[in-house]
């Protein structure tokens, strides 16, 4: 009798210990999650409150004059630079992704894949430095929309290529086989079957690429330059403003108006980036 009781008591002591340590473990995991979530919420909240209080109609209708005024020129510039980067990045990125997915199961494919991932890992300031020496000075483009957009494109292309590859690979082989069986040409299969079926993934990639471009600063400082004025349509020899420049420069100015503009710009950039990211996750999420 007593022996059985003892075993039971020991067991339950051990069990208690295990249960307690499990509970502590879960608690720590929850705490860890909070350590990620709370700073994000604080960041979003701080920037939303500070930024929203600087919002006004004139913020969107006038351009900055030194450290006061609005953000029109910067908003337009960010749009020009990031959409401009897509002009270069989409054909190359999607094309490369198609190659990797459809024909890249060979040595060349894996070399391209490795170097593409290496390019993704290249620090953005190194790209900016490269573009400054080659395009801005070497080709004489000066600070310009073209130099900025191409630099952003170099960053976005490898992302886009790999996301395209991944989404096209998900298209079932049977679809390709069926199309070929119907006598379709390779090119028709690639565009009309594979790319069409993988389109949601590719569009996701393009949108994420856009989000990356909108949020970048370091590669633009020495390529796009900065301008107080609305972009006048010139691709070279004309600097162009952008929102992230406002954030990084104006927060260092000892003026309230400059700080307000920096937070307003941060809020705009954050809204665009978060909206794109939440959008693609909610609408285009292929994961089940």
């Amino acid at each position, binding site marked *: 009798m007593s022996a059985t009781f003892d075993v039971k008591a020991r067991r339950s002591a051990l069990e208690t210990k295990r249960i307690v340590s*499990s*509970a502590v*473990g*879960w608690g720590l*995991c*929850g705490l*860890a*999650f909070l*350590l*990620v*979530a709370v*700073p*994000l919420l604080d*960041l979003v909240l*701080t920037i939303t409150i500070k930024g929203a209080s600087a919002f006004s109609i004139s913020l969107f209708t006038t351009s900055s004059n030194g450290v006061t005024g609005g953000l029109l020129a910067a908003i337009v510039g960010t749009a020009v630079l990031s959409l401009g980067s897509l002009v270069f990045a989409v054909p*190359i990125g999607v*094309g*490369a992704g198609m*190659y990797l997915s459809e*024909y*890249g199961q060979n040595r*060349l494919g894996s*070399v*391209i894949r*490795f*170097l*593409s*991932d*290496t*390019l*993704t*890992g*290249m*620090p*953005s*300031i*190194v790209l900016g*430095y*490269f573009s400054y*020496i080659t395009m801005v000075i070497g080709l004489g483009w000066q600070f310009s929309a073209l130099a900025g957009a191409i630099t952003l494109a*170099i960053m976005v*292309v*490898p992302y886009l290529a*790999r*996301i395209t590859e*991944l989404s096209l690979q998900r298209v079932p082989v049977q679809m390709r086989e069926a199309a070929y069986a119907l006598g379709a040409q*390779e*090119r028709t299969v690639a565009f009309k079957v594979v790319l069409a079926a993988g389109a949601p993934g590719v569009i996701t990639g393009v949108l994420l690429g856009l989000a990356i471009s909108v*949020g970048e*600063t*370091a590669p633009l400082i*020495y390529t796009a330059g900065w301008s107080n004025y609305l972009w006048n349509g010139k691709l070279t020899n004309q600097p162009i403003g952008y929102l992230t420049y406002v*954030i*990084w420069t104006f*927060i260092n100015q000892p003026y309230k108006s400059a700080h307000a503009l920096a937070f307003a710009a941060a809020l705009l950039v*954050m809204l665009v*980036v978060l909206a794109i990211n*939440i959008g693609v*996750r909610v609408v285009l*999420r292929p994961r089940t």
Partner: protein
Amino acid sequence: MKRQAKRLNLFRLTLTSIAIVIPVSLIIIVVFLGQYAWQAIGFNGIRFLGTIDWSLGNLYMNPVVTRGYQVPIGADYGILAFIVGTLFSSLLALLFALPVAVGTAIFLSEAAPDRVRPVLSMLVELVAVVPSVVFGLWGIYVLAPLISHYIGPGITAVLGFIPFFNMNNSTGSGFGLLAAGTVLALMITPIIATTLYDALRQVPLDLRESAVALGATRFEVVTKIMMPTVRITLIGGVVLGLGRALGETMAVLMVSGGALNYLPKTIFTPISTMAAFILSQLDSALQDPTNMAVKSLAEIALVLFVITLGVNAVARMIVRGATFVRNI
């Protein structure tokens, strides 16, 4: 038939040549950097990596020939302080990020209720997409004052007997190693956490079931059964995060304090990282009429590239098949 074969080849050829643009541009960039830095590599030699003093020399006196190269008097380019700043801040970031990321991943995958899990995991993913300049802004406005007024004195009170953790050994501004490490930790935690989260979700159900059948608590299932199976993925995620931290520019530049010519003696001391230094010094370096300063910056870019290349290559070797871009 023949015509079709020809067109087909043309199509493939076009796609191939487009795909080749990516490696070619990478090679152009690297070759350009190497060629541009060549003179600096010759002038600096191994001292480049081993000395602390970065000096453009006297730009207002006529350049002299030193070690066979035309450079300003007193020019000396040592980047040890920036290498140390880069490694310290990144390692500090890893030190913070690793436990937090593991905890977060376990929480998301095992503890979060199914209904809110997608929302919570998205929240973590979103941390990774916040632009780094916005992190920098938050660092200047929120984090640095927090460190200066609360965290710093707190750490000093608890660990102050170790000189490295004593704020009184530094000057006590919030900008420095700790601020840089914290911001970087925030940026890489989601990378590690989501990699691990995905792996945990893929652990086969029967593995868990057999552990539960043996009487393990759920937490024990996670720590003793599941974690060992995803170890490799975790290491891969860590190395990917490290790669990101090493190359980060804006956020670090904004909170690191911009130290020059000294190694940090405390966790509160200002630092500079290689990426941030390139950005902040390019203008100054362009002033050097001999161009040696700009070329030495190119050499920093090269060193940074080699380090990140190494880290990314290691990551890829560990996580075979996984890709840098997260599969959304």
